């Protein structure tokens, strides 16, 4: 057990380190010089200004020196200062991240509840066309661009019906539409995976045993099948982390909310590398962290895995 945990943690650390290395090389050794990219049209051809900027960006040092300094600062979660206003990147992220994580976490909740409901109903019903419609919903959901669904919900629920505000992050009502948008889109993946694994579970020998002992269809699904069928969903949720984070970033822009979306867009437009790198690394750490958690949860949820590990 300890060995399993140890190897998972080590692998996660290696993945984050490689991800850091990749972004480092992209941002520092790119063919288009970062300093030139930053000055852009403003100060073209002024060598002194360019040299000063290169020194400021650390581009005058050899790459391994820059790499070592950066690695040290990223390990301690210091991502340097924003090139635009000199604010520490970590402060900027600390201010923006809660908004984004709030939307992502609430959307995950909506996606889990909605997806589970659709999958359970589709497996439970014996009416052919109802099942067909329920199983077509995830297929449709996966084809809808998140930003467009946001615009549609805005159109109907805030412009036509006037139930919810169309922008702003001040009160709770402003959260409803963004969370609904991202939750609906992500529920499609949950519903699709769970419906498939529920169907498999309901055809398994233990489901047959439970049925012969007189379990009703709901009891069979909820007590016997759902737990086994939830393991692929757990894997799915781990992989959904990336979609939830970037989805939240996009949704923030649809509903003009403050958060990571605004920060990274401003960072990209100004070629503010420390900000971009900081946000990329934070998202990679969150993704790897959630997937590590999922890996560690498998043996807790599935007794078969515990037994396999012991032997």
């Amino acid at each position: 057990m300890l060995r399993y945990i140890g190897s998972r943690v080590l692998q996660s650390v290696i993945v984050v380190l490689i991800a850091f290395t990749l972004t480092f090389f992209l941002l520092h050794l790119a063919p288009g010089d970062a300093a030139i990219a930053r000055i852009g049209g403003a100060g073209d051809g002024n060598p002194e200004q360019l040299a000063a900027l290169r020194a400021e960006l650390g581009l005058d040092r050899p790459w391994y020196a820059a790499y070592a300094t950066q690695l040290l600062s990223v390990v301690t979660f210091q991502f340097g200062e924003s090139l635009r206003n000199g604010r520490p990147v970590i402060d900027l992220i600390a201010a923006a991240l809660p908004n984004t994580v709030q939307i992502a976490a609430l959307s995950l909740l909506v996606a889990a509840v909605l997806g589970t409901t659709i999958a359970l109903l589709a497996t439970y019903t014996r009416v052919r066309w109802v099942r067909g419609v329920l199983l077509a919903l995830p297929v449709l959901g996966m084809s809808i661009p998140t930003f467009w669904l946001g615009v549609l919900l805005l159109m109907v629920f805030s412009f036509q019906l006037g139930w919810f505000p169309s922008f702003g992050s001040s009160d709770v009502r402003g959260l409803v539409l963004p969370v609904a948008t991202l939750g609906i889109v992500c529920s499609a993946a949950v519903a699709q995976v769970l419906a498939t694994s529920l169907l498999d579970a309901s055809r398994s020998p233990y489901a047959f045993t439970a049925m012969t002992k007189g379990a009703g269809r709901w009891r069979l699904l909820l007590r016997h099948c759902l737990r086994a069928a939830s393991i692929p969903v757990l894997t799915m949720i781990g992989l959904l982390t990336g979609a939830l984070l970037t989805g939240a970033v996009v949704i923030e822009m649809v509903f003009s909310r403050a958060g990571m979306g605004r920060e990274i867009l401003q960072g990209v437009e100004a070629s503010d590398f420390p900000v971009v790198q900081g946000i990329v690394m934070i998202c990679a750490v969150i993704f790897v962290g959630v997937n590590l958690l999922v890996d560690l949860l498998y043996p807790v949820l599935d007794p078969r895995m515990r037994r396999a590990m012991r032997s």
Partner: protein
Amino acid sequence: MAVPISDTVRPPRPGARLLAFARRETVTLAAFAFLVLILLVTVWPGLFAAFDPLRANPSQAYRPPSWPHLLGTDNVGRDLLSRMVFGASASMPAALLATSLSLVIGVTLGVVAATLGRWVDAVITRLLDSVLAIPGLLIVFAFLAVLGNGTLPIAVAVGLAGCVSFGRLMRAEVYRVRSLTYVEAASASGVRGWTIAWRHVIPGAIRPVIALTALDLGASLLTIGAIGYLGFGVAPPAPEWGAMVAEGQRHVADAWWMSVVPGLTFVLIILCANQISRYFERGNQR
């Protein structure tokens, strides 16, 4: 007892088989036809657009879908259908380039990893895991920050992010095929690894790879659309589908069709791509 060869069981005529296929896979064929239409529109937009996509005509502003503006007009009176048609040549080539990049790089990495094995496999697997850890949209942002705005950096970034699924699929496929008896026999009789990869692995993997390619094309289009919605890529006033949704959002109270039309186009194309993907995925079981 010898079984007599019955003359009532004839091999079906080729035409009949085609007809049966068309009847069984009507939806897949319709999806394929729609994608071909979109490709034609991408290559020859002039043939499909009745109006200039850039010329404003204030007297025709905010016309709902009707004749002669089949999909309506926008806030300055530009024909929406013509803008959609010319928008295809902004979004589709980027998505196609991204998917081709993912396909080539991903398949190569997967085959190399599984064929060479050992430390090469370990290195490539970790590399793919690390790319997966950075959400695709953020890879695009990093590229845009370094290279400045443009369709090419977007397509390359989306392509690199998409490598992971192709790499993982090919790697698993090589390991699967290598454990088959006839491949073991080939390798036992001294056939070299690369020959086995070329003769046995790649033909066996074609169907799942096509399925993934179709799926990835839809996903790339979605990411590129999101980037366009956020204001990157093609510069206005040139039309781009994602940017058109954003434009439509600004006029949502006056003209619902301005954001509904490009949004529905995304949905239709991705539905079709996924339908084709599912056809190739289940194909082997029939």
